[in-house]
């Protein structure tokens, strides 16, 4: 056993850290230190900067624009990106549909879509959930009717995050209404500029621009936009879920909130001393940080497996469950530590900039235990697949 990164890996970390500090535009760097309130435009700008450097998709195979780094370097790169406070990149193209097209798409699809994901010419969003199909995703009712060389799509997708900024949407649609529900679903790529599509943004709890409803009214979609074959959508969805598991371990966000908590606790005074010097507050922070260390070790185990070219062990199934809960607890503590300042809601110059970011982020992360398969669904899956408990 060896729990340290090698000297070369640490040198790589320094290189990445220095580059990020250097490459981030000054105004963005200021915001990263303070509120971290980035717009989708900031995210796109940062995406383009990374693309120019060739670092926008380290997890892609080199031939499609990846960096060729091993698992440890990719992990270090992500850690540095997350702790730098730089804007998060849109995950839908880079981490979801991109890898799926690489694995299951046709050559034509790879040529058509991958370069524009890398260059930020096209942004993507996800069309899975429907008003009547949340955790029971397979009951989805948006239909794609066979019309010769194309499909006609009708229905409604919801929680289509960032659809208002996106150019394309990847959808699960029903292509065979008579098959068993999982068997009649197809994974379809749809151009959001197609006639018959309407995107209606919806305010989130954190007032961050995210959620939308997306309506499809007789939308024409060429058949060449099917990924993985007609009626193979459920297999595609499950493959994508595998990608999401480590994506949602929340190691970076946890680290980031922890930094903010300590920063605020070092600034605010209780009885004339910084909160960080009070045993009660130190203990609250320590408890979360200690749990984070345990969580970090679980993700390191998954990383070490990947580094050896192996599938992560069954313990990686708990990463989403534990990480999302932990990041919520951290945002809860951040709110608590702010005291009255936690009342603030999108003001300027009222509180410390770092404090302005907490409330909306606290609200935003309430979604973490819901999206990507709610934590209750995660438990169902682990009970069945890993503990092999009897089904009801």
């Amino acid at each position, binding site marked *: 056993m060896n729990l340290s990164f090698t000297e070369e890996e640490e040198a790589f970390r320094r290189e990445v850290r220095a580059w990020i500090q250097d490459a981030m535009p000054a105004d963005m760097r200021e915001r990263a230190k303070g509120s971290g309130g980035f717009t989708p435009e900031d995210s796109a700008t940062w995406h383009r900067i990374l693309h120019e450097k060739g670092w926008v998709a380290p997890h892609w195979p080199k031939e499609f624009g990846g960096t060729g780094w091993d698992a440890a370097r990719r992990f270090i790169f992500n850690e540095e990106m997350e702790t730098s406070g730089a804007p998060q990149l849109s995950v839908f193209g880079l981490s979801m549909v991109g890898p799926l097209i690489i694995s299951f798409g046709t050559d034509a699809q790879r040529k058509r879509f991958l370069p524009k994901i890398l260059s930020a010419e096209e942004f993507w969003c996800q069309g899975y959930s429907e008003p009547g199909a949340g955790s029971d995703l397979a009951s989805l009712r948006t239909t794609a009717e066979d019309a010769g060389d194309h499909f006609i799509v009708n229905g409604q997708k919801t929680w289509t995050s960032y659809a208002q900024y996106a150019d394309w949407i990847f959808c699960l649609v029903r292509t065979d209404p008579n098959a068993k529900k999982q068997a009649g679903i197809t994974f379809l790529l749809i151009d959001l500029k197609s006639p018959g599509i309407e995107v209606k943004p919806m305010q989130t709890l954190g007032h961050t621009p995210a959620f939308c409803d997306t309506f499809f009214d007789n939308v024409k979609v060429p058949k060449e936009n099917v990924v993985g074959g007609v009626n193979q959508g459920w297999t595609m969805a499950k493959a994508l879920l595998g990608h999401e598991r480590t994506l949602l371990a929340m190691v970076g966000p946890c680290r980031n909130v922890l930094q903010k908590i*300590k920063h605020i606790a070092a600034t605010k005074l209780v009885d004339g001393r910084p909160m960080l010097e009070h045993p009660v507050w130190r203990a609250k922070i*320590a*408890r979360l*940080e200690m749990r984070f260390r*345990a969580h970090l070790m679980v993700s390191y*185990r998954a990383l070490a497996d990947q580094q*050896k070219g192996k599938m992560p062990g069954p313990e990686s199934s708990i990463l989403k469950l534990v990480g999302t809960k932990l990041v919520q607890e951290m945002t809860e503590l951040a709110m608590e530590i702010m005291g009255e300042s936690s009342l603030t809601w999108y003001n300027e110059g009222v509180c410390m900039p770092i404090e302005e970011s907490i409330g909306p982020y606290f609200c935003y992360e309430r979604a973490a235990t819901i999206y990507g398969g709610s934590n209750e669904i995660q438990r169902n899956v682990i009970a069945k697949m890993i503990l092999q408990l009897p089904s*009801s």
Partner: protein
Amino acid sequence: MDFELDQDQEMLARTVADFAKNESPVERFRKLRDDDIGYDPAVWQKMGELGWLGVAFPESVGGYGGSFVECALVLENLAATLVPEPYLASVVLGGMTLLRAGNPEQHARYLTPMIEGETTLALASSEAQGRYDVSAIETAATPKGEGYEISGKKVWVLNGHNADHLIVSAKAPGGVTLFVVPREDEGVSVTVAKTIDGQKAAFIELDGVKVGEDARLGEEGAGASILDRTMDYAAAAAVAEGVGLASTMLNMTVEYLGTREQFGVKIGSFQALQHRAVDMYAETELLRSISMASMVRADEEDASTRRADVSAAKYQLATGGIWVAQQSLQLHGGIGVTDEHDIGLYFKRMYALNALFGDAEHHVARFCV
């Protein structure tokens, strides 16, 4: 970064696991808990012959030159069937202290025979008025002639009722100092106390016990920092043992959920119980993962690096480990709270480990945020 065991470690873990399963099933622990000693000196000797007692010690003292990881692996695997031999007390508490504090002559006299399984050790450090503070002691070592006279009272000395040699902490003129005291020396009186987990410890009174200079381990005043290190080893050892307990309890519970029927179905088909079992699995894997970090870092010289993981691990035992123990009892229902069923024995051992070498609050307080 690599979490895999090397071939020798893999082999050691497997051998210990096989021994626990085949030669020391829980019934053996049940029989021995009513015995005066509580374990079998012949089995101890066998452990010495197999080399298990020396895995973490250098070859110069008769060990096998491994790391603390090997020690932790032995403990983790012995825990599966509650093997009662005093590995933690003698090898970790006694042995690691002797190794770090003693000179070659003392190693040869006290450590090597223990590694060979001929003797056992105990660390007499805690006192009634203290709480996880190795310096908060009143036992005094007064210089007298060529040596010292030691007087004081020690509590909860693990294996203190049977150890050949006690390592006693006492305040000498130069500060907290460690001495080796044969248990059968004049002036040493031992009272056996039963512990919650079916094991035994000793309350030891030292009344003017005379020791020579050669009984002193290291310089006067060197004791506190040595004991601080020992307590980190012990905490990491307890966590490793806790991993063995938690995974056994989880397995027993999952098996019970898959066999016990109520309302005409297996109770493991109920979602409320499935979700509980998954949370037990999560806490167990968190404990296992941070235990890997703490067993590696226990050997680390830099105190803050070492403690970051050791304390985080002991904290996870106190929270997640204890929670797994509680839930495993709960999900076993009525049978779980009988002495007949084994699950409760593991439950009580987890509580014992929680109380030793610093509880949650102790480790929270010393963790550097």
